[in-house]
C-alpha cells in the first residue's frame, strides 16, 4: 500500500521509498526529511475533495507532500496488526 491510499489519521509504518523514473533524487530527499523504513507515519489531512497537498506526520515532524510524492512511499498498517 502507498501513502496516498491510507485511511486518514491511522498510523502506518514506512516500508520503503520508490523514486519515479526520471527523478531519482526524490527518494533521497524523502529519506533525508525522515521517510525511512520503520518510521511511523500518518496522513493527517488532505486538501479539498481528497486531492491537493497531504499533511503527513512522520516521526515527530509534519510535512506537506503532494499526492505524487505520497505515492512513492510504501507503508504497512500498524493498527490492524
Amino acid at each position, binding site marked *: 500500500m502507498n501513502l496516498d491510499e491510507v485511511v486518514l489519521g491511522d498510523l502506518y509504518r514506512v516500508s520503503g521509498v520508490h523514486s*519515479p523514473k*526520471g*527523478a531519482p*533524487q*526524490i527518494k*533521497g*530527499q*524523502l*529519506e*533525508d*526529511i*525522515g521517510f*525511512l*523504513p*520503520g*518510521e*511511523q507515519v500518518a496522513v*493527517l*489531512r488532505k*486538501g*479539498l475533495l481528497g*486531492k*491537493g*497537498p497531504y*499533511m503527513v506526520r512522520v*516521526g*515527530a*515532524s*509534519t*510535512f*506537506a*507532500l*503532494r499526492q*505524487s*510524492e505520497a505515492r512513492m512511499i510504501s507503508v504497512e498498517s500498524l493498527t490492524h496488526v
Partner: protein
Amino acid sequence: MSESKIHFFPSEPLVALLGNPNCGKTALFNLLTGSRQKVANYSGVTVERKEGRLTLSSGKNLRILDLPGAYSLYPRSLDERVTCNVLLGRAEGEKRPDLVLCILSAMNLRRNLRLVLAAKRLGLPCVVVLNMLDIAKRHGLAIDTEALSKELGLPVLTSIGIHSDGADAIKKYFDRLDWRHLNTMHVGAGDATLESVALHITHSETDNVQVQRILHNLGLDQIIPDRLSDRLDLVLLHPVFGPMILAALLFLIFQAVFSWATLPMELIKSSVEYLGGVLIEVLPNNWFRSLLINGILAGLGGVIIFLPQILILFFFILLLEESGYLPRAAYLLDRVMGSVGLSGRSFIPLLSSFACAIPGIMATRSISNARDRLVTILIAPMMTCSARLPVYALLISAFIPERKLWSGIDLQGLVLFLLYLAGIFGAMAVAWILKRFTSEQFKFNALMMELPSYHLPRLGNLAISLWQRAEIFLRRVGGIILVMTVSLWVLSSFPLPPEGATGSPIQYSVAGSLGQGLAHIFAPIGFNWQISIALVPGMAAREVVVSSLATVYALSSSSADAADALIPLISSGWSLATALSLLAWFVFAPQCLSTIAAVKRETGGWKIPIIMLSYLFALAYLASFITYHVALFFGLG
C-alpha cells in the same frame, strides 16, 4: 591562467552552528551574538551568510557562523551545498570551522540525531546542543543528557532558545574550553570529502538504525503529539475556513502596508524636498547642483521612499514565518500554484513582490527546484509593486471620474483593484505557458515542505531580522541604484539645450532624442512624444515617470505638487484611450533597472534578465495595443 588565492582569516576561533531547519538555530544564534551580526552572501552564491561575535568572560572573541539549515549532509539544495562546503573547508573564502555546534530540537530527536551522526563523521570537534528543552519538559519528555552524551560520544549541552539566559550553558562551556587544543576533542575517523550517493544511502540506513537504538535505550522512542498545533491546524488548514482566514489575513496586511506607511513616506518625501530646497539655496546653479538634486537626491529619494512599505510588509511576513503560519499558507495555496506549474513555495516571494520585486526575487532562494525558482523570478515583476502606485494614482485621478458605483464601491478604487488583478492573471498565464514548454524531466516539482509547530514569535528576533532586511535594501540603494540613477541623469541632461531653445531641456538630451525615436514605435499604442521621452528616465524606476512627465511638460520637477499640477494638463491633453493604454503598459513593463540588476545577480548572468526584459516589454506592448484599440473602437479616442 590560473591563480591561487590566499585567504587571510581573523585569528578568532570560528564556531559553526549546524542544525535541521526549524530547530531554533537562528534564535540561539541571536542569543549568542545579540545584535553583533553581519549579513552578507557566501562567495559566488546567493545564500545568506550570517556571522556574529561572542565575547567570552575571559575577553576572548569567538566568531559564530549560522549555517543554512540542512536535513542531511548530502547537498540537495543550494543552502545544503553551502553548509556542506563550509564544514568540509571547501567553501571559497571561508575558513573551515574550528568547532561545530550541532543544534538539536528536543522535540524532534529522531530526525535531528541523524544529522549529528553525519556531522560526527566530518572529523571536526563537535558539541551537541539540546534546544527547546522547555517545550520538551512541558510535554513530559525527560531527556537524560548524560546518557545521550555517552551514546553519542559527544558533549551534550542544553539550551532554551526563547529565554534571554537560555544560552548560558553554552557560554559557560565556551569559557572553560581549551581553544588551543581543540583537536584533542576529535572523534571518529575524520573524512573531509563529500559522500557519494551510494555511501550516503548506506549511511542514512545505518544511522537510522543507530538513532532508533539510542532513542530506545533512552526510553524516548514514543512520539509526542503536538496537540496545540494540531488543534490550530484543524481551523487554520480547514479546506473551507483555512483559505478564508488566509484571504482575510492578506487583506489586513495590505491594508496595513498602505495605511501605516503613509506617514513615514510623507516624512521621507518632505525631508528629501527640504534637502533639495536647501541645496538650491546654497549651491550655485550649475550642472553639479542639477546632478545632486535631480540625479542623486531625486533618484535615491524615489527608492528610499518605499522603505516603510517594505519594512511593514516584511514585519508581517517575518511574524507569520516565526509563528509557523507561512508554510501553511504555502500549503493552502499549493493547489492554485500547482495548476500553473509552480508550487506553494513560490507564494512567499510573490507576496513580497507586492511591496517591491527586489526582496521578492531575493526570497526565491528558498525554492529548491531550479526551474520553479526561475519561473518565479520571471513572473515576480508582474506583481503590482508599490512603485507603480504613484503612476496609477496620477493616471486614475486624471482620467477616471470619481464616481460611486453600486453599494458604495468607488470607481477609482475598482480600477486600481483591476490593475492588481491584471498583474496577477498575467503572471499566472505566463507561468502556465512556461509549464507547457517545460520538458518532462523538470516537471517534477517537489513540495516536501515542513510544517513546523506553532510558536509565539519573539519580538527581539523579529527586530534583528527586520533590521537586516533594511540594511540589505539600503546597501542596494547605495550601490547599483545610485550608479544607474546617475547615468540616467547624464542621459537626460546632456547635451545641453542650445542657446535660446524654447522647449524643456530634456528634449535636447540623449534621452530626449531616444524618446522622440521611440515615439514612432509607441504611436500605434497611443503614446505621444512626451510620454515616450518620460519613459526613458522612467527605466530607472517606474515612479520616476511622474516627475519626468512634469519635466517634459516644463514644470519644475522639484516642486512638491508636480503630480497635482500635471493632472489638469494631461487630462485635457491626452485621450482616455491613451491613458488606459499607459495603465496597461505599466501593469507589465519592466521599467525598473534595479529589478533587472537583482535578477542578474540572482541568476548569475545576463541571459535571464534579457529574456525577462524582452518578454515583459513584448507583453506590455501587446496589452497596450489591445487596450488602445479596444478603447478607440468604443469611441474613447
